[in-house]
């Protein structure tokens, strides 16, 4: 790996999004590292793209911030032309087009989630390489490897909003416990027809699991 790239700021992270009937719940940790130094311990990785569409960013901080800015502009322009709220699938496609076209130069893993009037709450994942697929629940980042088992066994379709929030917070906490590149606070966002509600769960308020 090119030594210059290694010292760039990375958000090797844990991100997650879950669909429920009426919206989506998104969550992320808050750690950004430069090598072994934590450059920002309260990062906000849940970035607004449009009024009811957010994205979770993982990978290179510079790449994902630049892509998110470009897609925000493109989607805003498209929405004005259409004179209606854009579809979540449109936002995900814009991310996919950019991530696939520049796949050799970029290191970006993005989860796009939101609510639109036509199809309700949706989660689309655009991992490194530029594939796009819709999933009811999606995890990403370096910490995701540790929670695939937990997510697969605990996810049930048709969970309520509160159950989704609890599920996301617990999954992220477990990942942050085990992954050195994830940590800090848990940031949550709920997107629905009513709008966006954001929460922060501080370190001492995270759910507790028994430690052996």
């Amino acid at each position: 790996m090119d030594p210059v790239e290694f010292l760039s700021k990375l958000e090797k992270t844990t991100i997650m999004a879950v669909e429920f009937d009426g919206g989506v719940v998104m969550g992320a940790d808050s750690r950004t590292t430069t090598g072994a130094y934590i450059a920002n311990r309260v990062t906000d990785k849940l970035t607004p793209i449009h009024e009811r569409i957010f994205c979770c960013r993982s990978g290179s901080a510079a790449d994902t911030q630049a892509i998110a800015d470009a897609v925000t502009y493109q989607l805003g322009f498209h929405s004005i032309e259409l004179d209606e709220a854009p579809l979540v699938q449109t936002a995900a496609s814009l991310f996919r087009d950019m991530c696939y076209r520049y796949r050799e130069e970029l290191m970006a893993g993005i989860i796009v989630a939101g609510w639109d009037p036509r199809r309700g709450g949706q989660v689309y994942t655009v991992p490194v390489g530029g594939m796009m697929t819709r999933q009811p629940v999606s995890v990403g980042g370096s910490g995701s490897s540790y929670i695939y088992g937990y997510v697969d066994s605990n996810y049930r379709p048709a969970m309520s909003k509160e159950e989704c929030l609890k599920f996301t917070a617990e999954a992220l906490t477990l990942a942050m416990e085990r992954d050195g590149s994830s940590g800090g606070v848990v940031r949550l966002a709920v997107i629905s027809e009513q709008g966006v509600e954001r929460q922060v769960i501080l370190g001492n308020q995270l759910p507790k699991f028994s430690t052996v």
Partner: protein
Amino acid sequence: RQRTRPQLLRAENTMLNTSTKTPTGGFSFENTRRNAVLEANLSEKGYSAPNARKTGTTIAGLIFKDGVILGADTRATDDMVVADKNCMKIHYIAPKIYCCGAGVAADAEVTTQMMSSNVELHSLSTGRPPLVAMVTRQLKQMLFRYQGHIGSSLIVGGVDVNGPQLYSVYPHGSYDKLPFLTMGSGAASAVSVFEDRYKPNMELEEAKQLVRDAITAGIFCDLGSGSNVDLCVITEKTVDYLRGYDQPVQKGLREGTYRYKPGTTAVLTKTVTPLTLDVVDESVQVMDTE
């Protein structure tokens, strides 16, 4: 200004055949192979190619009750030699926006100067005072375009219509917006002081003392930082550029002298040989003083 050979050749090419060469922006990496060969040859003889001078710095910023305080040390290093004992690392961008620069000295200097000029033009074009977020956006878009080859890490701080704001921008083009920030080689030392004592809405004197202490921690605990502490206090009403606010390191006093009295060394023999010189040629050139 001297143009190098590859640039001259390229100019000739575009004049002769108009179809083949498309103009490319950004850096030209044509000399990398030549430089690699030169470096290999030099290292055989035991020499090494010169490095770009990095500032090896401690810079910090924090938001207090009435505005923003930026702080920096004043040492510029060239590998292990101090190149400048009192350089200015807090650069002017706009009347209420200043920027501390770390990383490669030339890159930080030129980037901030470019930003200052862009901000002035943008401000004249919009008819409004500049926003700190606008400066940050232009900086990060430029640095991202150069994919990290411009090695400047910057802390941008200022007061605008949205209140006091503080952003850090990294060489690859990512940014963070935080209430307190440190960057440079002494960042770890300085941030520990902030993490211990920072509180939101501090008073002016307490905040100045805290920034001074953080930079001093960098000066003492980091080899790349040293000399004095510069502060810049920006509030809605005033800007106070305190150059040389504190000088924690005083130059030591020399204890003894190494001078000897005349006559200390005894003279054993003395030989005088006069040199006879003949005048060969004499010419007068009149200097044009008008």
